[in-house]
């Protein structure tokens, strides 16, 4: 078995508008484009991922919400039609994906050993959520790399941000240990928007970019503050500010993916590459990469610290 490696993580937001704007054959609705700066950002992220040659992509999605434990996709092949419940006019996508069940089971087991409630999802008729699918399509439209899908347990909302993110940290460390033990070369995908203030009505033409802008100034300013810290590699400050960002910027990182990924990476104090930023119905979205391989921090040769 090869040595486990977390090559990188990407902040890879999942507005279905980006798939809609691209007009891939899998998506039924047709658009006149739109959200180009974000889609071009994803083009650069795709090129970077392609060079990494990972064995597996792990994605933690806020749109698979579970209340009893953290769940993992556990069926080798899943396919179907994913229709976005919020934007069915934009996203009706035929998906087909392969799951790395061995790694998913290892994540589930390591999470259980760390004290979390965990569960494998074994139902072959399960409809994968649109957050997972959008993030995966935008980062790797070829769908040729197996994936591990993790649910977002609702602890941050049911209890509070601190306890919830604490649980996501445990999940991240368990994920790291599972990757180490299975010898995978993995990339982690944070399927999150930043500030999540959004408009409450959709323009007549959804891709009319003359109507697109940050929903409010506070959300935009928070996004810029956090992105700037990430670009400089001041990640400890980012994690310290996260609860305030969540509170004041209504940030979707509350759902846990960001904390999960950074805990899995061992909280590296390295600068992120910003591929681009843009708004979607007013929400703030950044495509960013933390490349552990380039930083010489990717190889997992020791158990995660408790």
């Amino acid at each position: 078995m090869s040595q486990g490696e977390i090559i990188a993580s990407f902040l890879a937001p999942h507005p279905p508008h980006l798939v809609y704007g691209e007009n891939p054959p899998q998506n039924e609705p047709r658009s006149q484009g739109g959200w180009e700066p974000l889609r071009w950002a994803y083009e650069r992220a795709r090129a970077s991922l392609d060079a990494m040659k990972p064995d597996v992509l792990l994605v933690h999605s806020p749109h698979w919400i579970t209340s009893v434990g953290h769940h993992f996709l556990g069926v080798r092949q899943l396919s179907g039609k994913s229709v976005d419940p919020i934007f069915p006019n934009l996203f009706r996508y035929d998906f087909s994906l392969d799951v790395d069940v061995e790694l998913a089971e290892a994540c589930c087991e390591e999470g259980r050993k760390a004290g979390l409630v965990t569960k494998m999802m074994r139902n072959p008729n399960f409809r994968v959520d649109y957050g997972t699918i959008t993030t995966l399509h935008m980062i790797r439209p070829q769908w040729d790399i197996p994936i591990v899908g993790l649910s977002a347990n609702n602890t941050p909302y049911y209890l509070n941000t601190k306890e919830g993110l604490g649980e996501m940290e445990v999940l991240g460390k368990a994920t790291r240990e599972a990757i180490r033990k299975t010898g995978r070369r993995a990339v982690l995908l944070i399927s999150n928007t930043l500030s999540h203030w959004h408009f409450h009505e959709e323009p007549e033409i959804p891709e009319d970019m003359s109507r697109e802008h940050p929903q409010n100034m506070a959300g935009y300013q928070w996004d810029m503050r956090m992105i700037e810290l990430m670009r400089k590699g001041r990640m400890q400050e980012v994690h310290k500010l996260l609860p305030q960002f969540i509170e004041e910027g209504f940030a979707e990182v509350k759902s846990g993916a960001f904390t999960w990924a950074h805990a899995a990476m061992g909280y590296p104090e390295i600068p992120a590459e910003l591929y681009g930023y843009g708004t979607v119905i007013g929400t703030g979205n950044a495509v960013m990469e933390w490349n552990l391989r380039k930083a010489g921090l990717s190889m997992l040769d020791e158990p995660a610290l408790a």
Partner: protein
Amino acid sequence: MTVVSAFLVPGSPLPLLNSTAPGWGRLASAVRRAGRSLAASHPDVILVYSTQWFAVLDQLWLTRRRSTGLHVDENWHEFGDMPYDIHADAEAAEACVAGSPTVGVHAKGVDYDGFPIDSGTITACTLLEIGTPQRPLVVGSNNLYHDSATTEKLAAMAVDAIKGQGKRIAVVGVGGLSGSIYREQIDPRNDKIHNPTDDRWNRQILRLIESGDVSELRAALPGFVQESRADMGMKHLHWILGALGGRFQGARVHDYNAVYGAGAAVIEFTL
């Protein structure tokens, strides 16, 4: 009378998926019993609101005449599939789309193959035997930004819109009571309300509903919502109140039970 019957039923799919658990089985039987009462009221249309159909942009109404598929609950996938074949009254639903701006709400119809009908709506349809060609639905979404007053206005508007088509209406609110749940695996045979405070609140709210004292009920609801994590601020109850013009004579509680610690009841309103 345009509204001929009204019911509040649980949205959790567990009573449908695993009725061998005693409490869940009793709830399933109670919903089936309520379904027989609903059928006996001879409605033309069932006006449904499920707390689990989330919307954040606009108010959505199901305008697809027939929705079929196989649903798997995102939490309870291990208990199996939920096949559905739901018929909607598209003309009545379109009237609701058109009428929503009159109460200040922008609305849209949803008519897409494969649209993810929520677990609550499917559970209610299956157990109540509604959403059939004989008893088609008009279903409105739960816009997470709508408060109880907006929800009541939308329900009242829907009743007016459907009444304008000369149809008899049964109203169904789909959702739970207290919302505290067990967050670890439990043996369903040992399920009970999560804590005594929630149980007291649930019983108080049920007594007030049974009494038909709407002003006392309205006075109690904010405390219930605050202290017992009541399901979506009890907007499914507000939907019923809006549809009934804020009045009912009393109610029969067919069953009250726990679903993974949360409160659930099957209520038939006396009009």
